[in-house]
């Protein structure tokens, strides 16, 4: 490889990394730099001293851990439901020709066009009636509704990408439809399904509007932080922000192999 190409390549990588890392870094600086660190200018490369005070105090705020647990419950449930309902829908869209398949596809997308704000009041009323109001389970249901269209469409394109003949070959050699799915389709789709699951998780983790409306005490982390941080000093807000970002980043980092596989980059 010649020098110019190498430079362009390196520059690109640095630019992309900077685009993601610099904001995170500033947030971290704010979170760990103490009250002064937030306003200090110019920013130093590393904070003069790492003050864990803000983070520690933040974690000691009453309800943060409960809220985080609620978030995990809601996001985990949303992830499971999105895959459990979305993957079969995606499979049907990919493999069967049925009357109204295109309309169905359109309807899936249309659910996203429906503004949540309009749904909020009737939803609240029915959730109170069913007993789902102010629980992470109710939030998980709404988040599933948000994530499901993506789950169905992404998995559908995954299944389309797996040649039908592979499944047919499995049938020929003695598999039932279900066995063929488990032995051939699922292993091939798994990286993509994992990525879809993470996507659903992150959608739920980041969602704040529905979560704020549908809960009062059992808030998810985003909803809880929105409430308490609006009145807190800036470095607390940074601490809260960092805490919100970290799980998504860690999660995606953990399954990067599958994401790379989905994007066709060989994992070495």
């Amino acid at each position, binding site marked *: 490889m010649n020098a110019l190409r190498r430079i362009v390549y390196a520059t690109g990588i640095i630019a992309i990394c900077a685009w993601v890392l610099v904001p995170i870094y500033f947030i971290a600086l704010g979170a760990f730099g103490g009250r002064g660190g937030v306003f200090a200018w110019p920013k130093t490369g590393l904070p003069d001293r790492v003050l864990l005070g803000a983070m520690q105090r933040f974690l000691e705020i009453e309800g943060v851990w409960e809220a985080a647990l609620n978030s995990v419950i809601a996001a985990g449930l949303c992830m499971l439901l999105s895959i459990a309902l979305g993957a079969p829908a995606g499979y049907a869209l990919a493999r069967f020709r049925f009357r109204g398949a295109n309309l169905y596809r359109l309807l899936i997308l249309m659910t996203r066009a429906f503004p949540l704000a309009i749904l909020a009041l009737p939803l609240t009323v029915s959730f109170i009636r069913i007993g789902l109001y102010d629980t992470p389970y109710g939030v998980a249901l709404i988040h599933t509704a948000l994530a499901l269209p993506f789950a169905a469409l992404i998995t559908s394109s995954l299944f389309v990408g797996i*040649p039908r*003949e*592979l499944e*047919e*070959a*499995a*049938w*020929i*050699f*003695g*598999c*039932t439809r279900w*066995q063929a799915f488990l032995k*051939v389709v699922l*292993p*091939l789709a798994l990286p993509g399904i994992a990525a879809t699951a993470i996507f659903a998780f992150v959608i739920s983790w980041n969602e704040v509007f529905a979560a704020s409306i549908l809960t009062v005490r059992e808030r998810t982390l985003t909803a809880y932080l929105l409430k308490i941080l609006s009145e807190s000093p800036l470095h607390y807000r940074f601490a809260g922000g960092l805490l919100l970002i970290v799980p998504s980043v860690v999660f995606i980092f953990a399954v990067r192999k599958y994401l790379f596989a989905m994007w066709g980059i060989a994992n070495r």
Partner: protein
Amino acid sequence: MADIQIERVRKDFGAVRALDEITLHVADGEFVALLGPSGCGKTTLLRIVAGLETRTAGRIVIGGRDLSDVPTRNRGLAMVFQNYAVFPHMTVYENIAFGLRMQGADTTRVQAQVKRAAELLHIEMLLDRYPAKLSGGQRQRVAVARALAVEPPVLLMDEPLSNLDALLRLEMRADLKAILQEAGTTTIYVTHDQTEAMGLADRIAVMHGGRIVQFDTPMAVYGRPQSTFVGGFVGSPPMNFIKVDVTGGQAKLGALSLPAPVASGSVLAGIRAEDFALVERDKGLPFNVLVVEPLGSHALMTGRVADQIIRVVAPPDTAHAAGTEIGLAPVQQRIVWMDAGSGTALGRSA
């Protein structure tokens, strides 16, 4: 022991009739090629036999058992797909073992069968590899090995060689023929390549527009086509069809007069390119040489007879230069007479 009886099978895709009352009997251990141009329904028929496609009407009976409504997995057949359909997430070994494992074969049998199939196809050294690391030809061999490992009574193949380059195809063709002859597997082999069908098959079913237009041995299909379509599709170059007038039961070809199967009117004389003797101009059918292609083993001459273009194959040293005019004397007993209107064979000349 498995013969295949396809009885009056029809298939409609909406308004399109893909298969029109197909009846075909493949004897036990026989190798039958389904030959026809693209879109004539070969794949559809094969998939109906496999149970991968539903039929509109008709029956599929294999080894005396009516399988028409039996699901694919219980039909006891193996198939090689056009794109191989080798499982990418399994090693070559696991691919070949797949059918055996589904049958619940014990470990020793699995090992023995995989080894045997791999040896047969010369892929023993690839057993630990994943398909992504194989060439097209190697993947093809894996697909065939996977099918043979279960020792199927019936083997279906859909254009298994069409994705290989010419040299590999030739090699694989010879291997396939030897392997399947030895195994005695009843085989239906779909292809649009007439040399493949000629070389491999015991009998060829020529398909056209959703029908079987001729079902016979390769030599009979080649030498005695039942229609101008078959004559034109099978053989390279295609059969010549020369329009001749018949009076008093005699067809007139230039200086020659040959007995024809009709008393009078217009007929087509179907003559293979190699079935001409080259004679002097006024002793045969006048032939105006336009192009000569020396092909090594023979020369292909393209030229004009009256206002028709025909092709003649001659030994390499006897070919005449372009621009000359010579005479052709067809080998009389090899002429296939066809009806000029319908293009169907008229029966042998009287």
